[in-house]
């Protein structure tokens, strides 16, 4: 796919891009369907239950049924809502989540756009979703939605900073912002993967990523047991489904990014396992990260709101800064 993008856009190439993106969107939708199913199953198992098992064989069609329910629901827009923004908000929050996937290299050959500023592209676009959330909260013209949107925006912006800074260590080690180059730098066995030399960065990245995803234990914007939903109180039907979809696509994006940045991308853990295709290794690591997120959700209680900002600014940010300095010093002394 490398050759296509730099060429001029003709009707032919446009149709091709379009078809490929639609195919990828379908893959993502399939992933989201079964990620939700898998999440409910895993949480069920961890709580001594079976999880969904009534719709279809083993409950495999449960999510399909849920989504179908959402799509045929009445589409309500509150009378006093800002109509245009209300309609726009789910779109703004979903589109970046899908667009950031373009830069993620799944294997050496399977990627969409191997940008030389891949990480920056990811970070810059993913923060646009926050605008969608705050718009949704504001346009609903509802105090709960507004407060939920504010809290959500505050949380996502504060955790974006440690998330980005914790990646700087990885960038220093590989000397590139290009995601495929970062993966290349981790070839030759799991001891070369970035999560070992960058263990502090890795931990900060994971914590900040979970918070960025608004997932338990940082799911304060939704906090189903405490609040009336948060920024999407007034949303129903397929607009609500879009917010949910954006959330799960971000799970996909963050899990892929973790795999690429810290877990060696498509490289096998031992060089002699090279005969297994890279995409399988990628999928394996990716699924482990996704499973880890679900595992966290089944284990931890929610962080209190007054602890939330403290954790972000007073613990994660200094830690990630310290990580940069340690990386720089160790690199200067031992590797140059």
């Amino acid at each position: 796919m490398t050759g296509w993008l730099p060429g001029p856009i003709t009707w032919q190439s446009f149709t091709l891009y379009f078809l490929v993106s639609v195919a990828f969107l379908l893959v993502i939708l399939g992933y989201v369907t079964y990620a939700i199913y898998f999440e409910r199953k895993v949480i069920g198992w961890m709580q001594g239950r079976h999880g969904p098992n009534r719709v279809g064989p083993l409950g495999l069609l449960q999510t399909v049924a849920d989504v179908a329910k959402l799509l045929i629901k009445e589409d309500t827009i509150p009378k006093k809502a800002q109509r245009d923004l209300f309609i726009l908000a789910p779109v703004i929050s979903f589109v970046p989540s899908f667009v950031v996937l373009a830069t993620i290299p799944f294997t050496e050959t399977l990627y969409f756009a191997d940008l030389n500023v891949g990480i920056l592209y990811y970070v810059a676009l993913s923060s646009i979703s926050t605008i969608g959330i705050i718009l949704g909260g504001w346009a609903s013209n509802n105090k709960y939605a507004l407060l939920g949107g504010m809290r959500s925006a505050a949380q996502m912006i504060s955790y974006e900073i440690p998330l980005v800074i914790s990646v700087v260590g990885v960038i220093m080690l590989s000397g590139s912002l290009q995601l495929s180059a970062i993966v290349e730098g981790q070839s030759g066995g799991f001891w070369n993967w970035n999560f070992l030399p960058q263990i502090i960065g890795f931990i900060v990245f994971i914590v900040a990523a979970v918070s960025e995803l608004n997932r338990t234990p940082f799911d304060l914007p939704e906090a189903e047991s405490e609040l009336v939903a948060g920024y999407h109180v007034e949303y129903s039907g397929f607009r609500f489904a879009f917010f949910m979809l954006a959330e799960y696509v971000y799970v996909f994006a963050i899990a892929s990014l973790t795999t690429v940045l810290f877990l060696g991308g498509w490289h096998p853990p031992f060089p002699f396992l090279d005969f297994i295709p890279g995409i399988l290794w990628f999928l394996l690591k990716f699924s482990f990260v996704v499973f880890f997120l679900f595992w966290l959700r089944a284990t931890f209680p929610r962080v209190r709101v007054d602890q939330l900002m403290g954790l972000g600014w007073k613990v994660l940010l200094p830690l990630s800064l310290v990580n940069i300095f340690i990386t720089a010093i160790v690199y200067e002394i031992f590797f140059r």
Partner: protein
Amino acid sequence: MKGLMKGLGVTFKNMTQKKVTYRYPDVPLEMPDRFRGIQYLDPDKCIVCNQCARICPTDCITLTGKPNPDPEKRVKLVDTFDINFEICILCDFCTEVCPTEAIVMTNNFELATYSRDELYKDKDWLFANNQNIRKENNSALPKGGAKKDA
């Protein structure tokens, strides 16, 4: 940090643990024998003493009697006996007070219906409700019931 790891360990171990859920709608639940479920009525034992209707805290029992066709006997026979399960609280008072144990508890509890009218159960329905009847009906009396043949 150690606590967080411990918690993750607990949930991970729980994944393979035996499931604690019942296969309830597929497999009926077995209730213990002292369970207070829907009443069973044996119209032949009923002497129309009205004690159950009088003690009922929600006034959900209505019963009428008719004269015994055998003129020798003065005991009445039950004509209609209705329990309104919209308001019955399954408190067990009617079955405790019944001197002949004509009305006893069962272990059945599935009362959900689409219409409230269906919750109005009559004599025949209660007589047909003869599964899972409570075995020991009055713990205060000696086993078998003292005044069974009143």
